[in-house]
């Protein structure tokens, strides 16, 4: 019974400490706002995913062409649009990076 009481009490204390830990670590946090993506960041994320998709598609196409699943004709018809798509998303991401870089000094 004593062991049970000790283990039960230890469990309760450990749980309370663990749950309260974020407040014990930062009793008066200056910024208690939960991170969330802004509209611009969401668009950047969508672009990054789009870029990766286009690059992966290009890789797949190359590999399917090499293994004979895609004919030369189909390869030529598909590779151009995919390269353009990849390049466009990469350019769009770079533009956003540049915009960000130019905005940061002006804030300071």
């Amino acid at each position, binding site marked *: 019974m004593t062991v049970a009481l000790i283990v039960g009490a230890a469990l309760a204390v450990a749980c309370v400490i663990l749950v309260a830990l974020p407040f014990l670590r930062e009793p008066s946090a200056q910024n208690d706002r*939960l991170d*969330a993506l802004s509209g611009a960041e969401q668009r950047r994320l969508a672009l990054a995913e789009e870029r990766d998709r286009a690059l*992966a598609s290009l890789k797949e196409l190359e590999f399917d062409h090499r293994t004979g699943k895609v004919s030369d004709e189909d390869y030529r018809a598909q590779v151009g649009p995919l390269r353009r798509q990849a390049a466009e998303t990469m350019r769009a991401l770079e533009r956003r990076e540049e915009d960000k870089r130019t905005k940061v000094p002006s804030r300071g």
Partner: protein
Amino acid sequence: MPDLGRAALVTAFLLLVYATAVGAFAARQRRRRLAASAQNALIAALGASAVAAAVLLAALARHDFSFQYVADHTSRELPLGYTLTAFWGGQEGSLLLWLLVLCGYGAAAVLTTRRVARDLLAWTVPVLGFVGTFFAFMLVFVSSPFVTQHAPADGAGLTPSLQNPYMAIHPPMLYLGYVGLTIPFAFAMGALLSRRTDERWIVATRRWTLAAWAFLGVGQLLGAHWAYVEIGWGGYYAWDPVENAALMPWLAATAFLHSVMIQEKRGMLRVWNMVLVALAFCLSIFGTFLTRSGVIQSIHSFAKSPLGAWFLGFICVLVVGTTALILARLPLLRARTKLESLVSREATFLYNNLLLVALSLTILWGVIYPLLSDLVRGESSTVSKPYYNFFLHVFGLPLLLLMGIGPLVAWRRASLRALGRVFLWPLGAAVVAGAILLALGAGSSRIGVIAYTFSIFVLASILLEFVRGTRARKALGTGTWPGAFSSLVARNRRRYGGYVVHAAIVFLAIGVAGSSAYQTVREQRLFPGDSMTVAGKQLAFRGFEQRRAPNHLAIRAVVDVYDKGGHHVARMYPGKNEYFAEQQVSNEVAIRHNLLDASDLFLIADQVNANGSVDLKVLQKPLVNLIWLAGLIFVGGSLIALWPDAREERRLAERYEGVLAEA
């Protein structure tokens, strides 16, 4: 000690309520510390449920019959191993295992995805907490394993069919599968609730989904083997409602694993993936409901219980809630691209999805029809094997064929010329194999010949994929052939691990077709000295032997087996066990494996008669061992697909850290 168990369960319940309510509040109000506190509550619930599990295990190990659960499911003579596995041998223990595994998964998912998916994790935690709260509530208020009583001198013992080494591994595997499906579901709902429908929820749960799916698959195969060696009817799958209950979420999860690749690669099927992940999860809860409620007659149903209504209510809440949420977020789930051609890799994935879901829903209808019939018309009816076999053939055979077609077709679109080139060898191999099978007399089963021909087609296409891929890698200058092969697999583990899993499914199909369509069955009453002939073997019954074990009496018929030439090849001992405490009799089959042709000689002592005779049932099951070999290949393929890929991890880290660094 029962007080400690109860206190631990109440603590877990309160922590999970906190994770749900405070987590949802924090996510809505965007309170960072409060959200972190809710995540910690989920982790703390793991500790509390682990303490409760430890209390129950200790009570089992000590034969503490003041715990009603221990008295109901064990006895003093029960070997220690089975005494401990009785943890999940009954309803309350199974629920506790559910809660423990769920909290374990939840804590691990929280700890591993904090960086990639902070914002959607805030909404994922309340969903995980909500599911956990339900199970903790059941354990605290409805079906507690810590109910005490005046301790009887001995317990009732464990059901004899559960006294098998598979008891140690089959239920935990299934639970790891069932419960694991909560993680992709919670992240998907978290993504919808937080309106973050980008691919992070897929990236965060990719490995969890694959692991849960693999556990569920392995769990079912282990269950099939258990039934094969223990239940004593000569089969491995009986379309029992509870067997179906594990198959349905596995099929839905298989569909999800395929369709989610289309979302990753093409940005398509975003709504469909949400539906599939919800369907797989709801079916896993439905499976638990079937097993635990006792509403359906099954060898797995332990008793009528008060759980049914609660589970049904929970399933209704889940179905209504997820449907409403998906409908509310439809505008966010619009596809970014369209299917370019009906002859493309993504189209074959789509066909495969439709067939898998159709098969899953057909099985669901077969399971719930008797319930509805009883409820609406007051008539008890059953849906039997021919119904399931019919739909297995209708949906399963095209699925098998698609496993061979899919890898050969290119993404986006494929021209007829390219198709002709890549299909030539697999088609040729399939046609030749079909002709040989017909010439060998396999035409006695049309379904068998079709299944084998399709299987050869799939194996040839998988082999070709590996050969062509290795050749292409070698052409890129990857040194030796083995180097090119390992580089091929290492660079795309999910794809090539998936092909290995496909090969496992083919072996499974060959084993199932062989052992069901071409099996030989003979039954005969034999007196000592009598013999019978089955599939060219002569079996002579010599008499009975008896052996007393601590908790049962083993009665065995002694059967000598001779080959065609009259040479003695084996002595086999089918029989019965009479369990003292449980007052039950179990069938103990005798199996002789032939590793050369993968067949089994399977002996069942159907009746042990008082006049000294035995009613012997003999089955010759060709290729049945390929089913168990398929299990090993399945594990291998799953491990390849699950193995961490450092290159992929770096790419994803770069994608998300670059974008989310300032979030």
